[in-house]
């Protein structure tokens, strides 16, 4: 085994422990780190010549980033269960090891100081908290925190117990539940750090403390007169009671009924702070075991962390194509989308020619960036550098020299074809042309470009500067260079790409549309509108289906519906939602834009559901109302079946694309890890059974594709298929 912690005993008998995990740019907790720490603790306990220890990092990148999330797979459902143990008990043993190791460190009997040179997150911070003294380098950029909750986990190595005992329960809960980081100065203020000194003095300061405090090897919470900051942790302390009454309610409101980790963190802190540390860390590990035993954390880590990083590092980039950096884009259309694309592109250091029909429109598009940078209070000089990269124009000749074109003009084929041709006339057909259409099939649009291999879909989401996803759409004739070029560009503007094949609405618009459509169907059946909206939000969608339709504009929904009907002709299948939209269109209710849609938007007041809604579109409320569970099932499975169809039809090639696109594109319940993770977790056979039942009750729109039936018959899952394909 290689060495992960180097030891060096100085003349004062102070053992310097330097964590330096080989082969990693940043320290993470590996089995080697744990073994080396255990050995060091044993030396501290048994070697009388050693007076104490200082724990530090050998990496310039920081102190330690905690557990290696990619390496945590073994924790989730993997590993055998020893005979005579329950699965949960075995899991507990697995997760308690590190917790106990850090407890051994703080009870080794000798003073241990942490000398923290850089970021310490998750398990990294938990290492430090188990030391008796913490000195941090004076650098405001250093982040200290327990961000586990962001991926559905929670700190399982004493973090939920030591942080409250150091800083008080209420502030600790804030950091634990929000995954917020603190700076060294904040840590000092909270008592999490004891000293902040210049970076080159951290080890000397830590050693000086060890030397001066031979009896410092005991934690405050292991002393008889320990007082919990903020008052005693007992039910009869009204302050303690209030923290949990209020804290639980706020967490419940924010996380809904969907997330395991926030609830587990609250319980671990509530129960753990009332008992001594040895019992407290066992309680913490039990809740940690419960959280990791549920597929939720594994699903979240896979999508929100592993798949996201892989996508951003080019998982879907065609092999063997040299980097294709973008230096200057031609942005066709300076509306909301074009202006947003210009902004993120200029911010990434890329020149932008922002073209619209007249110069005033183009300049208005540039102003969008100026306004937003000013709102962010960016230094005017820095903002000017970004703004100088955007050249507004109405002259196609200015596109000369662009090495990527992005088109975001009106969603009609004729206009798009005109600007495409006008552009090719200036830049030639070898330049890659990306269309930001959200509905029109790319293969058809590509006909306007002489080399359709260079034509691709680059679908942004609004508002561009805030939405993290870009959907790359591959037309029938799109070539690998176009894909590589688009992905390199997306990487340059620091967004998360997915790659899908051509179809009407592609992947994200098509599947998200089903959520809205199903909401409209429920409405048309006379379901209480508030029930539809509340269930939509409670199941983890960012907004209710009616609210989102109001934002998009009901007039637009009507137009898209008419266009689709015209395009598909006889193949168009009218849905139960069509009548609702037609009725709203007839009444001139367009949504937020004219302050009347499904909601009413009083000036200066909060919007509320139009009281006449059910009477108008459904002839009144139905006598038999569906339960919340039934509404949820329909809103969820209508999306799931469309996602499965996209996979079956080859629109999607990987479940990772499907999950990332759903979470980051339309806000699909992030706690599920995405629709494909969710279907795998539910079990494909169960998904098929539910869809068959729903299709029977509500129509063919729920009918499962043959692919799902075949998978169910094989006992297969989306990610198992993906793994086989990758192998």
């Amino acid at each position, binding site marked *: 085994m290689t060495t992960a912690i180097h030891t060096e005993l100085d003349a004062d008998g102070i053992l310097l422990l330097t964590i330096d995990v080989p082969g990693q740019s940043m320290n993470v907790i590996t089995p080697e780190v744990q073994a080396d720490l255990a050995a060091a603790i044993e030396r501290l306990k048994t070697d009388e010549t050693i007076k104490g220890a200082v724990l530090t990092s050998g990496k310039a990148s920081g102190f330690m980033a905690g557990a290696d999330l990619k390496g945590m797979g073994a924790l989730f459902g993997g590993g055998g269960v020893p005979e005579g143990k329950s699965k949960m008990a075995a899991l507990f043993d697995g997760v308690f090891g590190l917790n106990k190791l850090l407890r051994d460190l703080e009870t080794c009997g000798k003073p241990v100081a942490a000398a923290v040179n850089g970021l310490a997150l998750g398990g990294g911070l938990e290492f430090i908290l188990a030391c008796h003294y913490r000195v941090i380098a004076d650098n405001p950029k250093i982040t200290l925190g327990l961000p586990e909750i962001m991926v559905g986990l929670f700190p399982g190595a004493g973090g939920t117990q030591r942080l409250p005992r150091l800083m008080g329960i209420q502030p600790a809960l804030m950091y634990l539940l929000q995954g917020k980081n603190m700076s060294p100065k904040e840590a000092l203020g909270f008592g999490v750090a004891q000293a902040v000194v210049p970076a080159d003095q951290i080890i000397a300061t830590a050693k000086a403390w060890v030397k001066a405090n031979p009896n410092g090897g005991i934690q405050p919470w292991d002393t008889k007169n320990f007082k919990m900051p903020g008052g005693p942790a007992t039910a009869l302390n009204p302050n303690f009671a209030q923290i949990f*009454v209020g804290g639980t309610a706020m967490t419940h*409101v924010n996380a809904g*009924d969907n997330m395991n980790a926030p609830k587990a963190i609250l319980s671990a802190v509530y129960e753990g702070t009332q008992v001594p540390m040895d019992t407290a860390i066992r309680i913490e590990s039990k809740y940690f075991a419960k959280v990791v035993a549920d597929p939720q954390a594994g699903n979240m880590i896979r999508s929100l962390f592993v798949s996201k990083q892989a996508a951003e590092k080019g998982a879907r980039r065609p092999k063997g194509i040299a980097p294709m950096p973008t230096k200057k884009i031609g942005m066709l259309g300076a509306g909301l989308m074009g202006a947003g694309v210009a902004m993120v592109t200029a911010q990434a250091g890329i020149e932008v020619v922002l073209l619209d029909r007249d110069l005033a429109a183009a300049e208005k598009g540039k102003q969008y960036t100026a306004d937003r940078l000013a709102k962010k209070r960016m230094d005017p000089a820095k903002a000017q550098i970004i703004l100088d990269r955007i050249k507004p124009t109405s002259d196609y000749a200015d596109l000369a020299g662009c090495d990527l074109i992005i088109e975001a003009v009106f969603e009609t084929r004729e206009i798009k074809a005109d600007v495409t041709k006008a552009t090719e006339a200036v830049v030639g057909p070898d330049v890659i042309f990306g269309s930001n259409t959200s509905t029109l099939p790319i293969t058809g649009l590509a006909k306007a470009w002489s080399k359709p291999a260079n034509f691709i879909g680059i679908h942004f989401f609004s508002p561009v500067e805030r939405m993290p996803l870009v959907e790359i759409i591959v037309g029938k004739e799109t070539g690998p260079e176009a894909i590589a070029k688009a992905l390199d560009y997306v990487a340059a503007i620091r967004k998360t790409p997915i790659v899908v094949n051509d179809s009407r609405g592609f992947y994200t618009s098509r599947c998200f549309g089903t959520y809205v459509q199903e909401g409209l169907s429920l409405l048309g059946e006379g379901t*209480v509108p508030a029930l539809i909206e509340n269930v939509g939000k*409670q199941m983890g969608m960012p907004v209710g289906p009616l609210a989102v339709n109001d934002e998009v504009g009901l007039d637009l929904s009507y137009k898209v519906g008419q266009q689709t009907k015209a395009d598909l002709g006889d193949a168009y299948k009218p849905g139960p939602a069509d009548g609702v939209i037609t009725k709203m269109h007839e009444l001139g209710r367009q949504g937020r834009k004219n302050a009347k849609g499904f909601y009413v938007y009083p000036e200066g007041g909060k919007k*509320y559901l139009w009281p006449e809604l059910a009477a108008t579109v459904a002839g009144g409320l139905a006598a038999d109302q569906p339960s919340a569970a039934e509404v949820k099932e329909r809103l969820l499975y209508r999306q799931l079946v469309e996602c499965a169809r996209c996979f079956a039809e080859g629109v999607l090639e990987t479940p990772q694309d499907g999950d990332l696109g759903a979470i980051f594109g339309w806000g699909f319940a992030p706690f599920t890890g995405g629709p494909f993770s969710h279907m795998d977790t539910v079990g494909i056979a169960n998904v098929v059974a539910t869809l068959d039942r729903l299709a029977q009750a509500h129509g063919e729109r729920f009918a499962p594709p043959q692919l799902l039936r075949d998978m169910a018959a094989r006992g297969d899952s989306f990610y198992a298929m993906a793994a086989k394909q990758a192998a």
Partner: protein
Amino acid sequence: MTEAYIYDAVRTPRGKGRKDGKLHEITPIQLATQVLQAVRDRTGINTADVDDVVLGCVSPVGEQGSDIARVAVLNADYAETTAGVQINRFCASGLEATNMAAAKVMSGEAMFAIGGGVESMSRVPMGSDGAAWAMDPAVAYKTYFAPQGIGADLIATKYGFSRSDVDAYAMESQRRAAQAWSEGRFKNSIVPVRDVIGEIVLAHDEHMRPQTDMQSLGSLAPAFQAMGEQMPGFDAIALMRYPEIEKIDHVHHGGNSSGIVDGASAILVGNKAMGEKYGLKPRARIRAMASIGSEPMIMLTGPEFVAQKVLQRAGMTKDDIDLFELNEAFASVVLRFMQALNIPHDKINVNGGAIAMGHPLGATGAMILGTVLDELERTGKGTALVNLCVGAGMGTGTIIERI
């Protein structure tokens, strides 16, 4: 089964549950002691015949802790052979204590038993005893915990009671209470509270505001809006349980909710032979008793269900009941009960209730049982159904019948 009869019913006046309330200087043990002494002195019984004293108390900690019922027995100079037990059924504790006392008589466990309750809300504030329900995150999550006021506002929203509906109800409660006091309708049951030198510190309900009108009520800000809509945002939790509601209309405030007060109550229950032994005339028979559980988040719709259950236990219908007495925890609770069972306003809470006079949590149940018994006697009516909404979705009810 042995019949259980009510031989006496007393209560203290209710003092404002604040530092400037008249009863703030009186310890809770004194309140309990004085009602027990009153029962003994008014009936002339030998307390050795009282087998048990059951007292409700909702915050049984601090000076209300450690079985205040037994300690009150000792402090009131009852026979040391009399047992005492403190119970907690939240707001119905006083009625539950009476039901338990009656059950002891019915089962033959006791000859005489006293049921009642005590709460000094000015000295031991609500919530002093902690609660796994509200505080333990796993439990609060599971039960969709929100404070009662949110449930009361949710009832108003769900069942269609506007701010003016609840305010009008509150105004009528004040009017009825004022009239009842001015006509001396409570005089038979009120035991003035005395201090250590034997002087009377309070002889009437201190919380009443007889001048209340719609305008003064209308000026009060909703009490539960901030906790519902802002911090910590309990409304959203309510909507998880009741997703068909778009938005909770916060209609309750201090003027249409029960008052926070101090007080104690006691009811002497016994079998027939005990009455004969002391020449006491049974004032009423306990005809049926019941408790129920219902959905805990909305919390306060239990009265409807416990009324149905206790009527069924008694083999009666609501039309067999002459007077209803439902604790006025919040105006919407009573309005919903009237709506659900189709009860006219002139048959319920005819002498006002806790909105006007206050709700000393542990004591109220036995207080309102005594109030309605007085009213039956005053008007020559026969039957009454007493019930209360109870925390965590419960309900407790009792039907009494004059002999």
